[in-house]
């Protein structure tokens, strides 16, 4: 078993109330399914879409957003899966794909001591 982080990319905007409801239900269903199968290590947190970027030796501070809306990370979840393949397969149920978002699946580095 390994741990993986899902980084959700893409802001979901301009939905009607009913579409918001549907999106909510789909996310809940997906999380519930992963939880029941024991894959959720930490459901994670949502992130604000605006913030600050601190960069370089000068430590220059600039305002977000840092990228196009479709690339902004909106939250993360820590999951457990057999391997990267399984983590990828599990991510395919994420409702974010319906709004042309993306899930970045990153294995957490293992410390093989």
């Amino acid at each position, binding site marked *: 078993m390994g741990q993986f982080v899902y980084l959700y990319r893409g802001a979901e905007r301009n*939905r009607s*109330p*009913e579409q918001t*409801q549907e999106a*909510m239900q789909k996310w*809940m269903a997906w999380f519930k399914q992963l939880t029941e199968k024991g894959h959720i290590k930490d*459901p*994670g947190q949502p992130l604000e879409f605006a913030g600050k970027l601190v960069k370089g030796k000068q430590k220059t501070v600039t305002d977000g957003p840092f990228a196009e809306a479709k690339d902004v990370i*909106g939250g993360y979840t820590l999951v457990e899966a057999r391997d990267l393949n399984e983590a990828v397969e599990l991510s395919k149920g994420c409702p974010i794909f319906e709004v042309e978002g993306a899930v970045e699946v990153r294995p957490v580095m293992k410390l093989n001591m």
Partner: protein
Amino acid sequence: MDPNEHLFRREAGRMVSTLTRVFGVHNLALAEDVVQDAFCRALEVWKFSGVPENPAAWLMATAKHRALDVLRRERTARAFAPELGRLLESEWTVAPAVEELFGANAIKDDQLRMMFSCCNPRLAEEAQVALVLHILCGFSIGEVASAFVSSEAAIEKRISRAKKVLARSKRLFDVRGADDFSGRLPAVHRALYLLFNEGYHGASPESAVRTELCHEAMRLTTLLLNHPLAATPATHALAALMYLHAARLPGRIDASGNLSSLVDQDRSRWDSRLVAEGQRFLDLSATGSELTEYHVEAAIAAVHAMARRTENTDWGKIVSLYDTLMTIRPSPVVALNRAIAVAQHEGPERGLEEIRAINSDRLATYPFYHAALGEFEFRSGKPEIAREHFRRALAVARNLMERRFLEDRLAVCERPAAAGSCCDRKARLNS
């Protein structure tokens, strides 16, 4: 979250109404942005943390915080509601002012205020209903378009024009009596009636019965009933008609998910609580001298509700109520329903006569017009002609349920042995 709850749709209406009062009616678009924003936040946060215990309060509190941000940021740059002017002069007064503007007492009549404002006489009736659906019931442009069986472009145009008229009206309708309350009330009734009908007879391609539309209309009607000036006999009649029809909704779809006509319905599935409530509203509507179409339609629904079995239906009374309705609000659909009642009362040949006397131009795309012709031809012993009518009905059917219902009727017409037994089948269409 209960999938049938439509939380966001319902809260959208409440929140936009309150925010529009706070920002001023000319800032309707800003109010909508703030609601959209609160919904996005809810979606982002709830995904991870689950739905809070009181989601409606969470949403309204989020909207309040956003409103406070907006007022702080733009208090000098943008004109808000005139009553706010003085409170926005100082940074210190903004927060307590907002707190008060979102207080339970302040938000009590917001939806009613918005409802009356949407039914502005400068707007055509269909624009008013579109606006009510869009603003108070949280329907997107696309959802309003499908409710009206209209194109999205046409509805987009209609709603944006209507919003401009609303924004130019300078202030929201005063529901405490300073404005012409009784003059505006019939338009509000009409809008809610059309909303209910859309849910009950739905022209939507997805489903024939969209219970949630009916429930929305009933929810908004309840707001009228709870307001001293709005709780008139006509409002009670409207509520009666909605409750008496809603009582039949559980029977309209049979156990296998198919549309079931009024006469075939398992009447034990009718909601007796709603029947009793509807009957109570009907009694309360019988004061004063005004007889509205809602009174008559509610009375018709009450006759059906009172017949425990289809055979006990007082069709003579129903025909005479339809006669009255034709004098108050004549329409081809009312005429068709009247003809169906006549057929029940005096036989299929008389029903056919009545249907043929209706100007059918506007009924050509209405599946139940052709289905009624098919049904009565079949009962008159002409299954070949009946089949043609049912095929025509099928060609204009608007959803799977209607299609299945009509296919079933067509199949019955094709069964030669069934011809004899069909005569005791009463109107299947008057559902």
